[in-house]
């Protein structure tokens, strides 16, 4: 290999909101030998195509569009002089943190003390759901349709059906309507919406787009461009109910049926994943099962608000800065267990040495509940909620964990 291997303190994989936030915070903590590697031609990640507003209320106290939100961090990166390369794709990360980057200028290799995984997530596709029927053109994931319209100036739709009430799907319902398409309906297989209440209000109700719960697309029709879909009601186990089929004519089916953390590089590096989040198993330092490899943002668990992505990445950066200066972080052997009302938690284990922020999602909608964190029968933290929805991530700060003692229990009472 003629290319030399460059040593670096921290290599950040991905210049989206998580990577940018982590970089800025690391720099501020005095860690300067860092590099953001971004595969697209510009920094900003998926925010570049999210031209709607609603970003930044929690993080900045104002509502911004996606590019504006990303722009704040990008300006800071540029002003501080934080090193980054674009049009550069990381193709491999080893468990020893040797990173390979493909760029038009050549193949680059870095030996990093710490690798920060901030690759974000990808969309679940029609193929992953194995929706029966033919395979015409005109079936797009919401993010792809959004990219075509907002970044590539191409109109992919006229008569539209949307499957899934994820946030991007609802935002695209509004966007497509504003661009002159006719959005006939949104169908959701769950008995409750999977996106945020504010999006149902602002993207569907405001435009008279009906939302049908407990419905799904059971067949796709058309051998060239999409001609229509068959929609069916489903029972409590999501099985289509015979006799409820309805044919809906349309030329476009938009899918907003879930996001999957993009962990291909993590798997190759030997990082252990959580079956629920499909992101890494991490401790309170956001360190994965591979020492020196950290993860935050949507690659760790899918967030509903970018503000929380930034804040999580900033916390990660604090721990990475300490890892760089001290060489290691404290052992984390206290596990987090949870009951059936909780879908997952981040982190999955903690040290007990310090206060940490717990992120979780409930597994189904609930009313008037209290989420409690206990250790050996002791209540460490709790949150009372009038309404708990799977669409909304819940965060609690937890203190007073005893290391060497029993596992933490997270439950709904």
């Amino acid at each position, binding site marked *: *290999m*003629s*290319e030399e291997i460059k040593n670096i303190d921290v290599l950040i994989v991905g210049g989206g909101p998580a990577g940018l936030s982590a970089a800025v915070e690391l720099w501020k903590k005095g860690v300067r030998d860092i590099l953001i590697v971004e*595969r697209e031609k510009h920094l900003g990640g998926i925010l570049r195509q999210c031209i709607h507003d609603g970003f930044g209320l929690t993080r900045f106290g104002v509502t911004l569009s996606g590019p504006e939100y990303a722009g704040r961090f990008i300006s800071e990166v540029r002003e501080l002089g934080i090193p980054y390369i674009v*049009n550069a*794709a990381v*193709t491999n990360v080893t468990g020893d943190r040797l990173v*390979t980057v*493909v*760029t*038009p*200028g*050549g*193949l680059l290799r870095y030996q990093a003390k710490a690798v920060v995984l901030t690759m974000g997530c*990808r*969309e679940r*596709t*029609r*193929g*992953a*759901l*194995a929706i*029966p*029927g*033919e*395979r*015409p*053109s*005109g079936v797009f*994931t919401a*993010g*792809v349709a959004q*990219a*075509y*319209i907002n*970044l*590539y*100036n*191409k*109109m*992919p*739709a*006229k008569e539209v059906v949307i499957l899934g009430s994820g946030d991007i799907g609802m935002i695209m319902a509004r966007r497509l309507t504003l*661009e002159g398409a006719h959005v006939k309906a949104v169908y959701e297989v769950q008995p409750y919406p999977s996106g945020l209440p504010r999006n149902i209000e602002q993207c569907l109700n405001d435009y008279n787009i009906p939302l049908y719960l407990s419905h799904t697309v*059971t*067949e*796709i*029709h058309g*051998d*060239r*461009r999409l001609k229509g879909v068959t929609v069916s009601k489903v029972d409590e186990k999501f099985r*289509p109910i015979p006799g409820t089929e309805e044919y809906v004519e349309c030329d476009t089916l938009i899918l907003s049926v879930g996001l999957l953390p993009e962990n*291909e590089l993590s*798997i190759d590096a030997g990082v252990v994943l959580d079956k629920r989040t499909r992101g890494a198993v991490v401790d309170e330092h956001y360190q994965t099962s591979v020492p020196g490899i950290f993860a935050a943002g949507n690659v760790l668990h899918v967030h509903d608000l970018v503000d929380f992505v930034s804040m999580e990445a900033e916390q990660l950066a604090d721990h990475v800065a300490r890892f760089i200066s001290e060489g290691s972080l404290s052992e984390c052997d206290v596990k987090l267990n949870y009951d059936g009302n909780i879908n997952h938690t981040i982190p999955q284990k903690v040290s007990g040495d310090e206060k940490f922020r717990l992120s979780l999602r409930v597994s189904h909608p609930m009313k008037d509940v209290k989420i409690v964190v206990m250790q050996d029968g002791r209540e460490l933290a709790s949150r009372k909620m009038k309404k708990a929805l799977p669409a909304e991530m819940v965060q609690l700060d937890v203190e007073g964990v005893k290391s060497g003692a029993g596992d933490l229990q997270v439950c709904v009472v």
Partner: protein
Amino acid sequence: MELFDVLIIGGGVVGSAIARQLSRYRLKIGVLEKNLDVCYETSGRNTGVCHGGFAYDPGSLKARLCVKGNQMMGDLAEELDFSFKRCGKVLVGFTDEERARLHEVMEQGEKNGVKHLSIIEKERLRELVPTVEGEFAMYSPDSGILDPFMMTIALAENAHQNGVSYFLDNEVVGIHREEDDTWTVSTKHGELNASGASTYHTRWVINAAGLGCGVISDMLGLTGNRIIGSKDDYIILDNRLSKLVPMPIYTVPSNTYMGIHVSVTTDGNVLLGPTAEDTEDLHWYGVAQKNLDYLYEEATKIWPHVNRGDYIRTYTGILPKWIDENGKIQDFKIEIVDDVAPHAVNLVGIESPGLTASVAIADYVIELMKEHMDLLENPGFVPVRTGIKKFAEMSEEEQAECIRRNPDYGELICRCQKVTKAEILEAVRNPLGVHTMVGVKYRTRSMMGRCQGGYCQMRIAELLEKEYGIRETELEYNRQGSQLFFGTVR
């Protein structure tokens, strides 16, 4: 009007193999293909297995041409630069009845000239395929897997390189025999809403129309062939599982049905299929929920690692089967019927193992033609065709070197399959002039990964528009009428 020596109807693997083998001779050859690319139907919708030839009646064309095709495959793959792996294959069984049947299959295979077959016990089976279920198996080490898209494209490109003209978007609608014993073939363009018509004049016609073999046969005056479809649904799984399926895993076959199998593609994707339902409709490529459930259950019996979370796509292929009046599936029919249709080679019911046998079929067709005419060797014939170099399969040293020579190799367009801009551009500029999205997909494997083009398709659409100077509304996904866009936004 220019006069062709040979017009081949159908640019699938068989038509393109015939075109390529005939281009060894001094002939003016044309291929009429109704789709916008060469492997849009049966040739691109199958398991991609290079069959051994044991599952066919001894003495049949299927047996003879499959065995011959299998033996030729290694050299062919090398010459034409498409992926082929002689990885072997196992047929697993559980019951005494199945064991007896496997012995029959093995004996039949030996009669057919298939080498190295053996019955192996559980322990050896687990050594070969650690993840498989089954008490015993028949092992065929000479079976293999190949890339059916690239095999077809490579044959077509090599034929083209040797002077064969490809006429895509030309669906044959009429064949007329002239008084001087030449043929006039009429086609229409735009398949759905005829956007034009063409006429071709030729000495010989070859019916390699695959699913259209019955229709073309009728046009030639060779009526009475009954064709039904065998519709095969498949599920494609993530290529992370490739290590778990080092070779195709089949169940015990009959001589007309291979059974459900768990196979692996040359790109490492695991395949579950096929369902094999008889159908009169040779055009409907839909997958039914019940078939997906059935595939899951049946595949799990021989390979207990099927997980719905690993699904990335489903697909359907239809095999054209020639049947007798009792519905019994017949052999391949390859004929020249002098008194009805002189100077026409009629191929009927070229189903599985047509992919494996394709070049052997082509040679057989040429032998038949030689009984009617003298063929002069083409001294300029070039047997070698070079494909697109795959970045993902290079060592890091080779990758670095490639980027140094061409910076487009340093721009990753498809993240899942690690396909670079250099490869995409080469595919966009393919010699046949195919400019559909799926054309690029077949030639590069971009958009075939787990995100199904979620990341790369926009870039590929832009490159196609730019290179061909077409508007976004003119860009087709795969077939005529499969446009992706209705216009611009701003």
